[in-house]
């Protein structure tokens, strides 16, 4: 098995990367940001990649970048610009908004987005990527027992939304 070039990988696994990123972030803009960051890291790390489960490697990078970003934002929370009651907020008709409005309602995705990020990462790696608990534990650097707990509690949290 030969190691793909970065360009080949971007095209062949772009949809996979974007799917995982979208499930983790819950929106198109952040998913695009995440995919860009991941592909940059992939570019730097491709030389060290050893042929194996490419999707496992990519999902590891994606999840780590996502969680790193979450932790960074917790350390340095993003603060909205000062409120000014005199301001009338202008509407946005940009491409992002248009894209968002085109998406069908997705209760499952909405429910997923409301999970704590660490729980969401475990659930996505299990139910979207299809990794085993042991693989998830290795990727997230947490004990298997913690994986078990996060996946179950994550799924349990979805219950209220997903009741048919």
């Amino acid at each position, binding site marked *: 098995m030969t190691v793909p070039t970065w360009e080949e990988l971007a095209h062949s696994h*772009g949809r*996979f990367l974007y799917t995982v990123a979208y499930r983790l972030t819950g929106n198109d803009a952040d998913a695009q940001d995440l995919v*860009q960051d991941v592909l940059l890291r992939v570019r730097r790390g491709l030389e060290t990649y050893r042929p194996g489960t490419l999707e496992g490697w990519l999902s590891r990078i994606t999840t780590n970048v996502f969680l790193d*970003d979450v932790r960074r934002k917790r350390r340095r929370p993003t603060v909205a610009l000062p409120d000014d009651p005199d301001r009338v907020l202008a509407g946005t008709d940009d491409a992002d908004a248009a894209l968002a409005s085109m998406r069908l309602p997705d209760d499952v995705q909405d429910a997923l987005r409301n999970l704590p990020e660490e729980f969401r990462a475990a659930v996505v790696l299990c*139910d979207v990527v299809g990794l085993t608990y042991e693989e998830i534990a290795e990727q997230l650097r947490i004990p298997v027992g913690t994986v078990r707990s996060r996946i179950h509690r994550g799924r349990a949290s979805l*219950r209220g939304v997903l009741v048919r």
Partner: protein
Amino acid sequence: MNGDWHPRDELSAFLDGELPDDVAERVEVHCLVCSSCAFELDAARDARRNLRHLPAVDPPAGFLDMLVARSPSHRSPSHRSPSHEGDRARQRAGWWVGNAAVAVALGLVLVVVSAGSPESTASAAMSLGAAVHQHDVAVAAVSDAVDSRVAAPPRATELGRPYVAPATLAGYRLVDAYDVAGGVHLLYERGSDGLSVFETSGSADRANGVIAGHPFEVLSRSGLVLTVVGDGAGSPVSTAVQQLDAARHRSSRLRRACADVLEALSPAG
């Protein structure tokens, strides 16, 4: 079997076949007699089924192509064709010159407004030379971008990473983005009018006003200074700031990207 035992966290692992055989058997037997756990097992099964039926998501059309096209190995050295020195460039010359003056003034303003803060440093604001240089670079790069009709979002040229900023702001179109000393400079244009958004590190009180006929607005939070400078009659500087506020999501991306820049630029970061 311990009658008080309820396999809460093990239920999903049971569904996923991730339990040792003896524990799985315990869980299975328990759920036959415990309605609460049986209910929770069904709920977990439903959630799992819904999650696993989520479809793959297609990235926006052209997104991957754009990323690949913007990768260093695909980027040819930029060159300026003689044509871009023509009418279009001349048309913009007015606001570039004006904005260059503002940028120079801005260097002073940022130094002044941040002078009272313990966090303030000269490096937090652009030096006059850096401001002028950045505008020189900006003018060239904008011309390149317009000439080549690059549809992809601009990127900070020397950061080695994509930089995503709001594509439009107050009716202005983003034409390029640059890393400047300690921050980022975004360039927007609308016809012959221009708008510059500077994000730099440091601290500044809100210091709105007019410099050389160009309104500007300075906002400071969390060690970042956001300055919006515009020109032209009735320049919608405050509208641009409103839109940064309104487009909270993209604004957050802007700030996050800037925070990343600052982190990368800061040895202590």
